[in-house]
């Protein structure tokens, strides 16, 4: 038997260790242990499975691998049977016995737990046949859902740290930057700035001390790509940062992670320790003389710290307030030293680019935007979770072909993309390719990848108000346009939602929005008006309905909603009258009930409790 080197002193040691790793999946059950599936009870399922394996004396041969996010979070807990790639979802503790007895012992598929596709709910047992997986292209998520993030060997077995080894044995820093340039990789944090330009600028900046920072302060509500990468494949991020450090001449990196992501912090910390023990972080990495180490810094709940200069202020131990540029971080960044800051997803792409070449990466995507993009799908879609598609894939394909369309047979109204900095794309632009330029033209942005699908039940004015309220709360207060402007915008929007708006408010919103956009200090303020401006552009009818007709078409803005009772349908069960908090419903048992509109607070309780579809909201029943 070959000897497995514990400390990898040279590139040959890494090869030797890889050669010893058994990549056979036959006797493995892969279990998604992403944050979503853990919340769905995956760990209890694991305990139950282990007990069943033991009962059937399979515990010595079959093992359960805890992986990172497999993608379809709404289907959790999820299992993938290594023997035949059969995919099980919504697995409960009580299913463990059947899975072991039927699948493992008899080789039969447990149909009721398989993926169901289409209106006829046809069973699609094998993962590679499922449209959700089949239509994706995984570069960033290449290891997510396959490797155990707590096992260094799992990653090495999937070519982990191979790009590092290739770089240290055969590449110069300039060659690394050239390869990144060839790949056409653009920053995945939102702005889409070409990565190689940042790296080259930091490399050229004079100084012995330089820093590599990873922005894992994924604050956009509706985004969980970076969390999933850190939880599912932390070594790819570490490797990407090691490569970045070599390219710019840095020996110290920091990962700035949100405090809301305890599991990501835990797994990343463990991965850093494992890499250090194996000699992949620290002095003289793989015998090359290159030294690099990493430290995690946890955020403390300030959205603005996702902005690069605010993030650096926060690492320095100060209030996370942005500062004007120039000087750019590549010249004067963390502790006034040249600094490169990239997002988690950007770094996770780097090992692929170095190992397979920039051209391989550039073969995906559009003329101006290369590679793939990870999107976090949520909202009114049938399958919410994490997907990765080539840049330029039409929105339509993502929402309908991959995510299975809109929940409960409702209709697609808009896709909110890019979080509080982004905008809403209406149904007529469903064919838009998801790339930086096309989305900008529609007043949205690619952003970090949060994609929230909105159905007919949501009010677009309310959605705009939600985001403005978010940025108002999160504005650091340093510059006036953002601090005061977002507050004024919120006041106007609240007025409109309450039925007190006037047509001149629309003009005010647009003028105010555009001035906030052009005069704010940092990206937070510069994009704060996007949700308002994009809804004004695409959903003017809804604004007008609120202002002119004093109606909220979606029935969301409570002050503009009316409830009444359909005399034909009311059976006089008294449920609504008993629950009404202001006692404004008159009627006796078995008699028709009537709502007193003058007293009604429009809380909707009657609408929700009525079992006979007699209570109507804006004239419509449930």
């Amino acid at each position, binding site marked *: 038997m070959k000897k497995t080197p514990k400390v990898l002193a040279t590139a040959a040691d890494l090869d030797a260790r890889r050669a010893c790793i058994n990549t056979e999946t036959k006797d493995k059950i892969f279990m998604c242990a992403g944050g*979503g599936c853990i*919340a769905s009870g995956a760990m209890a399922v694991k305990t139950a499975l282990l007990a069943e394996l033991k009962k059937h004396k399979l515990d010595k041969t079959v093992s359960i691998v805890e992986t990172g996010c497999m993608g379809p979070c*709404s289907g959790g807990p999820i299992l993938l049977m290594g023997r035949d790639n059969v995919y099980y979802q919504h697995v409960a503790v009580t299913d463990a016995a059947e899975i072991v007895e039927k699948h493992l012992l008899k080789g039969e598929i447990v149909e009721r737990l398989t993926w169901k596709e289409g209106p006829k709910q046809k069973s699609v047992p094998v993962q590679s046949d499922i449209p959700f997986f089949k239509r994706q292209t995984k570069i960033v998520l290449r290891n997510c859902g396959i490797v155990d993030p707590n096992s260094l060997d799992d990653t090495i077995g999937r070519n982990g740290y191979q790009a590092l080894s290739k770089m240290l044995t055969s590449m110069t820093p300039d060659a690394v930057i050239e390869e990144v340039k060839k790949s056409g990789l653009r920053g995945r944090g939102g702005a889409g700035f070409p990565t190689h330009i940042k790296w080259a600028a930091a490399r050229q900046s004079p100084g012995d001390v330089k820093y590599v920072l990873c922005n894992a302060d994924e604050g956009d*509500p509706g*985004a969980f790509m970076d969390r999933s990468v850190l939880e599912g494949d932390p070594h790819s991020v570490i490797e990407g940062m090691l490569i970045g450090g070599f390219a710019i001449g840095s020996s110290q990196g920091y990962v700035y992670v949100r405090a809301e*992501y305890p599991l990501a912090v835990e797994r990343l910390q463990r991965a850093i320790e494992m890499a250090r023990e194996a000699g992949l972080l620290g002095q003289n990495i793989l015998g090359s003389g290159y030294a690099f180490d990493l430290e995690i810094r946890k955020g403390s709940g300030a959205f603005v710290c996702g902005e690069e200069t605010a993030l650096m202020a926060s690492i320095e131990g100060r209030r*996370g307030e942005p500062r004007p540029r120039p000087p750019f971080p590549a010249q004067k960044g963390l502790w006034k030293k040249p600094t490169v800051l990239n997002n988690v997803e950007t770094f996770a792409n780097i090992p692929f680019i170095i190992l397979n070449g920039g051209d391989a990466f550039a073969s995906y995507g559009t003329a101006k935007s290369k590679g793939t993009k990870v999107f976090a799908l949520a909202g009114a879609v049938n399958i919410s979770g994490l997907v990765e598609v080539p840049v330029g894939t039409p929105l339509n394909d993502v929402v309908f072909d991959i995510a299975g369309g809109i929940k409960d047979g409702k209709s697609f109204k808009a896709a909110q993309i890019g979080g509080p900095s982004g905008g809403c794309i209406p149904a007529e632009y469903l064919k838009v390719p998801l790339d930086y330029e096309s989305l900008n033209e529609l007043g949205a942005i690619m952003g970090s990848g949060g994609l*929230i699908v909105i159905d007919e039940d949501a009010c677009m004015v309310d959605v705009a108000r939600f985001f403005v309220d978010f940025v108002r709360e999160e504005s650091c207060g340093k510059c006036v346009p953002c601090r005061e402007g977002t507050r004024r915008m919120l006041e106007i929007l609240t007025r409109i939602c309450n039925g007190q708006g006037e047509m001149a408010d629309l003009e005010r919103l647009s003028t105010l929005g555009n001035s906030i956009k052009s005069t704010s200090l940092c990206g937070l303020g510069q994009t704060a008006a996007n949700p308002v401006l994009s809804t004004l552009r695409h959903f003017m009818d809804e604004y007008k309905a609120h202002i002119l007709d004093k109606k909220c078409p979606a029935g969301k803005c409570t002050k503009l909603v009316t409830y009444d009772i359909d005399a034909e349908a009311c059976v006089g069960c008294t449920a609504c009258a008993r629950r009404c908090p202001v006692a404004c419903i008159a009627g006796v048992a078995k008699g028709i009930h009537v709502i007193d509109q003058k007293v009604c607070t429009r809380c909707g309780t009657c609408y929700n409790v009525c079992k006979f579809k007699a209570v109507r909201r804006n004239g419509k029943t449930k």
Partner: protein
Amino acid sequence: MVKTEKKCTCGGMAASDADNHARLAQVIEEYQHKPGALIPVLQIAQALFGYLPKDVLRTISEGLNEPYSRVFGVVTFYSFFSQVPRGKYVIRVCMGTACYVRGGQAVLAALEQELKISVGQTTPDRVFSLDVGRCFGACGLAPAVMVNDDVHQFVQPGQIKDILAQYRKPTA
């Protein structure tokens, strides 16, 4: 602040407070020469004491040789730092986009009703504090509620009582 808060009923609290101060001194010692130590030290201190009372801030200010004004400025800037005692369990109701559009508000209202406190407050027995969160990245499971580090998914207002019960009993 009400004076009786300092009187504790659990007995061992006073001793553990001294332990916490000793531990804080160690942490300051350890971090003293690290650049950018203030925020990590504040995070550890908050985890030890549950909140950041004035005397703790003063110790940190002196220990790290940072002006008190700066320490105070940092504490008030970040929403995770609290200068008032918090509950044993901090409940954060996600108000991110996905949770908002899928009924997060109704869940928050149910919690407020059940705990009889509003956002930012702590129950008199100091078991629960109620906060609003900004997206936990659990959007696929909306609406989500976090109790300390546990994420609860697809929460319906009707489940609130059961969820709280899990945390109420094992205090013994």
